[in-house]
C-alpha cells in the first residue's frame, strides 16, 4: 500500500471543501473524506497484519522514499510499524467523529472544515514520517490550524487561550527543532533519516543534550508537568471538534514523538533521564487528578483529567520495559478515543443546556437517555472499568512498571495506582451530578441526540469497546514495535 494516500486523501478533501458552494455540500464532502480515511486506516491495518502474518519482520513496512532536498539529505521517507498503525486508526476514528459532531457549525463552515481536515493531514503525515525533517514539518501543520480553530470558533477567553496554546506548542516545537538539528549535525554524514540515525548510534554526549530537548519539546504536546497549562485553557475555549482533535490527536503527537524520536534514537539519554520522567509523570498523574477534583466546569474536568491520563503515557515510556511501553501506546489510543468522546458529549450537553457548570445541571438522564448513557460509558472508561479501553491500557502500564524490582519504581507505581481512586471520585461526582438526581428546572424540554451525534458517539464507543473486550489485537499490533525499541535500549553503551 502506498502510504502517501494517507496524506493525499485529506489534501484532496481539503481542496474539495474549498470548492464547495454551500455549507451542506461542505459537510457531506468532509464526511466522505473522513469516511475514506477510516476505510483507508482499516485497509492499512488489514494489509499490515497480512504482511506480518506472512512473516515480514522488517521494522517498518510499506516504506517509500523520494528525494526531496538532496543537498541537505532530506528525503520524503514514509513507513509504518504497529505503533504508527495504531495511531493512524485512532486519528481516523477521531476525525470522523469530529466531522459528525460539527454538523451544526454555521459560522464560516467551509473554513472550519478545511482546517479540521488540514489538521488530520498533519497528524497522518507525522505518524508515517521516517524523516525527521518531514516529521517536524507535519507537526507544525498540525499546530497552526488549532490557533485559528480556537481563535475564531472558540468560546470564553478564546484569544488568550489561542495565544497561550499556540505559543506553548510553538515553544515545544522550537525545543524539538533544536534537538533535531543537534542530532542532524552529530554524525559525520548529516542525516535526518530516522532509520539511518537509529543504526548509527548517536554519541553519548549528544544524547545527554538532545534527549531532554526533544523529550521536553514533545512533552509540551502531551502535557508533561509543568508544561501542561495550555491544556485546560486550550480545551475549554476550543469548539467541540477542536477539543476532540486537540486531546484526541494533538496530545498523541507528543507521546508518539517522545517514543519514536527521543527514546528510540537516544536510548542512553532515555536511561539517564528515566527517573526524572517517572517523577514528573507521577506528579502529573496525581496532581492532575487532585486538581480535577476541584473543577466545576465539565470541559475543565476533562482537560485536567487528560493531564492525569497522559501522565500514564509518559510513565509507561519512562519505565522503559516492553510491557510498559506497549501500555503507553495503548493508553494513547484509549485516551484519544475516550477523551474525544467525552468532549463530544460535553458539546452535546452544552448545545442543549447552554451551560458546562456541573452545579447547574441535574437529572439529564431523564430527558436525554442516549446522551446520559454515553456520558456514563465515557465516565466509566475514564475511571478504568474493565470491558472498556482505559482499564486495559492502565493495567498494562502497571504490569510493565512493576517489572522493576527497585523501591523507587515500586513507589512510583503504587502512587500511580492510587490515582484510580481519585479518578473514581471526580468522574462519579461529575456524571452523577449532571446525569442523575432530580431534573433541574428549565430542562423539561431538552431533546436527545440527533443522528449525526449518535453516529459519532457510536463510532467512538465501538473503538473503546473493541479494545476493552478484546485487547489482544491491539497488543499484538503494538508490542513488536515496543520490542524493537527495547532491543535498542538493551545494547550496552
Amino acid at each position, binding site marked *: 500500500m502506498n502510504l502517501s494516500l494517507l496524506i493525499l486523501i485529506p489534501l484532496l478533501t481539503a481542496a474539495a471543501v474549498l470548492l464547495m458552494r454551500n455549507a451542506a455540500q461542505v459537510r457531506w464532502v468532509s464526511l466522505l473524506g473522513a469516511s475514506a480515511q477510516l476505510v483507508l486506516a482499516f485497509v492499512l491495518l488489514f494489509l499490515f497484519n497480512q504482511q506480518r502474518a506472512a512473516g515480514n519482520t522488517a521494522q517498518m513496512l510499506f516504506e517509500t522514499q523520494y528525494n526531496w532536498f538532496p543537498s541537505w539529505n532530506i528525503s520524503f521517507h514514509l513507513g509504518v510499524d504497529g505503533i504508527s498503525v495504531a495511531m493512524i486508526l485512532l486519528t481516523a476514528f477521531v476525525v470522523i467523529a469530529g466531522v459528525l459532531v460539527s454538523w451544526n457549525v454555521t459560522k464560516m463552515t467551509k473554513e472550519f472544515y478545511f482546517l479540521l481536515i488540514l489538521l488530520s493531514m498533519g497528524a497522518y503525515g507525522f505518524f508515517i514520517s521516517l524523516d525527521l525533517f518531514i516529521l517536524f514539518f507535519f507537526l507544525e501543520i498540525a499546530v497552526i490550524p488549532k490557533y485559528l480553530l480556537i481563535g475564531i470558533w472558540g468560546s470564553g477567553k478564546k484569544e488568550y487561550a489561542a*495565544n*497561550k496554546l499556540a*505559543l*506553548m506548542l510553538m515553544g515545544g516545537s522550537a525545543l524539538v527543532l533544536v534537538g533535531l538539528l543537534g542530532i542532524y549535525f552529530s554524525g559525520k554524514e548529516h542525516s535526518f533519516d530516522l532509520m539511518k540515525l537509529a543504526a548509527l548510534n548517536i554519541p553519548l554526549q549528544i544524547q545527554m543534550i538532545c534527549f531532554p530537548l526533544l523529550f521536553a519539546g514533545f512533552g509540551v504536546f502531551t502535557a508533561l*508537568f*509543568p*508544561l*501542561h*497549562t*495550555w491544556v485546560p485553557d486550550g480545551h475549554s475555549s476550543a469548539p467541540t471538534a477542536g477539543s476532540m482533535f486537540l486531546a484526541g490527536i494533538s496530545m498523541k503527537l507528543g507521546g508518539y514523538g517522545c517514543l519514536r524520536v527521543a527514546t528510540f534514537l537516544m536510548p542512553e539519554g532515555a536511561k539517564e533521564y528515566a527517573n526524572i520522567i517517572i517523577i514528573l509523570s507521577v506528579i502529573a498523574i496525581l*496532581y492532575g487528578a*487532585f*486538581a480535577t*477534583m*476541584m*473543577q466545576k466546569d465539565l470541559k475543565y474536568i476533562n482537560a*485536567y483529567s487528560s493531564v492525569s491520563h497522559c501522565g500514564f503515557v509518559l510513565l509507561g515510556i519512562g519505565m522503559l520495559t*516492553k*510491557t510498559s511501553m506497549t501500555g503507553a501506546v495503548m493508553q494513547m489510543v484509549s485516551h484519544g478515543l475516550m477523551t474525544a468522546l467525552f468532549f463530544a458529549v460535553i458539546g452535546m450537553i452544552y448545545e442543549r443546556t447552554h451551560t458546562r457548570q456541573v452545579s447547574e445541571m441535574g*437529572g439529564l*438522564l*431523564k430527558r436525554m*437517555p442516549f446522551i446520559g448513557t454515553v456520558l456514563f460509558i465515557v465516565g*466509566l472508561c475514564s*475511571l*478504568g*472499568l*474493565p*470491558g472498556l479501553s482505559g*482499564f*486495559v491500557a492502565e*493495567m*498494562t502500564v*502497571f*504490569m*510493565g512498571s*512493576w*517489572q522493576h*524490582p527497585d523501591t523507587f519504581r515500586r513507589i512510583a*507505581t*503504587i502512587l500511580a*495506582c*492510587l490515582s*484510580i*481512586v481519585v479518578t*473514581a*471520585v471526580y468522574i*462519579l*461526582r461529575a456524571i*452523577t451530578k449532571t*446525569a*442523575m*438526581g*432530580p*431534573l433541574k428546572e428549565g430542562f423539561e424540554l431538552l431533546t436527545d441526540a440527533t443522528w449525526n451525534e449518535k453516529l459519532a458517539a457510536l463510532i467512538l464507543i465501538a473503538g473503546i469497546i473493541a479494545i476493552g473486550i*478484546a*485487547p*489482544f489485537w491491539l*497488543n499484538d499490533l503494538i*508490542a513488536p514495535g515496543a520490542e524493537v525499541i527495547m532491543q535498542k535500549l538493551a545494547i550496552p553503551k
Partner: protein
Amino acid sequence: MPNATYIALIPLLPLAGFLMLGIFGRKYFKNTSGVIGAALLLISTVLALYTAYGYFFEYGKVDGVYQKLVPLKYTWLQFSENVSIDMGIIIDPVSVMMLVVVTFVSLMVHIYSLGYMKGDERFPTYYAFLGLFTFSMLGLVVSSNIFQIYIFWELVGVSSFLLIGYYYDKPSAVAACKKAFIVTRFADVGFLIGILILAFHSGTLDFNTLITTLTSPETEGYKSAAAASFMGVSALTWGLALVFVGGAGKSAMFPLHIWLPDAMEGPTPVSALIHAATMVVAGVFLVARLFPVFAISSPNALTMVGYVGAISALIAAIIACTQTDIKRVLAYSTMSQIGYMMFALGVSKYGGEEGLGYTASMFHLFTHAMFKALLFLGAGAVIHYIHSNEMKDMGGLRKYLPVTHITFLIACLAIAGVPPFAGFFSKEEILLAAYEHNTAIYWIALITSGLTAFYMFRLYFNIFWNAPSPLERAGGEVHGEHHGEGGFVMMMPLVLLAVGAAGAGFIPFGHFISSDGKQLNTEFHLQFSIAPVALGLAGIFIAMWMYKKQNNRPDKIAASLSSLYKAAYHKFYIDEIYTFITQKIIFNLIGRPAAWFDKNVVDGMINATGNGTKDISESIKGLQSGKVQSYAIYFLAGVIGLALLFIYWWT
C-alpha cells in the same frame, strides 16, 4: 469431563440478556423484559445444577480428591512470555457451589421482581442491570486467573453501583451508589497492588500455577517472595494482606463497611441478591480461592483475616440491635454473618481435620445465602405492603402477610442458630473450628450469636407482632384496594428459599467441600452445642419480652445503657470519621491547594514568561517606530558618538 460450552453458557446467557434488554429493551420489550430475563436465568440455573451434579457425583473426584479442572482458557492479554491475563473457567468444589448459589438466588430475585418492580418506568433497564450483575458475578466465581477475577470484581462493583443508584432521581440513592463505588474502589487499589506483588514473585497470573508456586518452598518464586521484605514483613504476606484489603472492601469488613448500610437505597430485591447473598461474599470467596497460599505460606496474613472477621461480626451485631430501618438491620446482620465466614477461614488450617474452618465457612456462605436472601425478600414484601422501611410504621402484620410471616420466621430461626434450621449446622461448625484454634475469637463469636438471635427477633416481633398494625389503627382503610402479599411471583421465591433455609443444614458439606479436596467427616457434638443454642434462645426470649407487646421496656433499657446505645445507634461515628478525613483532609488539604497551585504558580510562571517577553518588547519597540526623523536622530547620535570615541582613542 465437564462440557466447556455448557459451563460457558451459564454466565453468557445473563450477558446476552443484558445486551438485548439494555439496547432494545426500552423499545421492544417494555413489558416482557422481566420474563425474558427470568427465562434466560432459568436456563443458567439448570445448567449450573447440571454442572454441579456432574462435578460432584460423576467426574470431579479422582482418587478421593476433588480436582481443579480448567475446561476453558483463552489468552486475553499477553504481557510477557509467562504472564498473561486469561479468560478461563475453573471448576472446583467452591466455584461449582458458587455457580449454584448465584444462579439460584438470582433466579429467585428475577422472579420476585416480576411482582415487586411491576409497573416501574425503567423495568427493562432494571432487568438489564440484573443480567449484567449476574454475568459478572458468575464470571468472578469461575475465574481461572487472578487478573480475570479482578476484572469481574470491578464489573460486579459497577453493577452494584448502577443498581444502588437505580432510583437515580433520589439524591440519597445517588449519594449511596457513589459511596459504595468509591469505598470499594479504594479497597481495590490494595487488591491490585497485591496482584502485582504476587504476580511478580510467582511469575504468573494463573491461579493454579500461582498457588502451586507460592506454596512450595523449593520454587524460586516462593524463595524470592519470602525473602524480599518491606518494613519487616515478607513480600508474600504483604501481597496476601493487600489482596485481602480488596476482599474486605467488597465484603464490607470493618473498617471498610460503611458503604453497605447506605447501599440499601437500591430496590429491595437487589439488596437481597447483591448485598446479601452474592457480591458481598466475594471477599470470602477470594480468600477461599487463595486459601492454600494463606494457610501454608503466610499464617500471619490469615490470622489478620480472622481478627478482622471477628471484630466485624461483633461490631455489626451491636449496631444492628439499635437500628430502626428494617433493611439497615439486615445490612448490619449481613456484615456480621460475613464476619463469621471470614474468621472461620482465619482460624482454619490447610488439610484434613484441621481444615474444618474452611468447610464451615463455605457451608455458612451457602446457608446464609438462603436465609438472608429470604429475609430481604420478606422485608421487601413488608415494604411493598406498608410503603415504609421504618419499624415504627409496622406491627401486627402477621394477619395480613401470612406467607411472609411464616417464611420470615423460618429465616429468623435459621440465622439465630436454632436447630434444626440451616444456620444452626453451619454456625456450629464455625464455632467448633474457632474453639479448637483461637479462644478469643471463639468468645467473640459466642457473644455475637446471642446478639444475632436478639436483633433478628427484635425485628421479627416489631414487624409481625407488637402494636396493632397501622391498618387496624386506621380502621383497616389505609390502602383502599390493597394488593396483599404480591401474588404468586413474589410468594414462590419466598417459599423456595424457606425450604432451603430450613433444610440446607442437612447437606453433608464436608463431603463435597474441604480445604484440600478430600472428604471431611464433620461430627456433631451435642454437649458443644448447648452454649450457643442456649445463648440464642436467651436472645430470642429477651427480644420477645421486650418487643412482642407494646411496652416501655426497650426505652428503659436504652436509657440505662445511654452512652453505649447512642454510640451504637450512630454506628460508632465511623461515617463521621470518614467524612472528616475525605472532606477536611483530602479535599481541603490536597485537592484545593493542587488546583490553586496549578492556576497561580505553574500557570503563573508560564504567563509571566509570556508577559515578560511582551514587556521587554513593549519597552524596546519605540526603537522601531518607522519614523525617518527618529532614525535620522539615532544615526546622527551614532555618528557623533563614534566620532567622539575615535577622537578619544587617537588623542
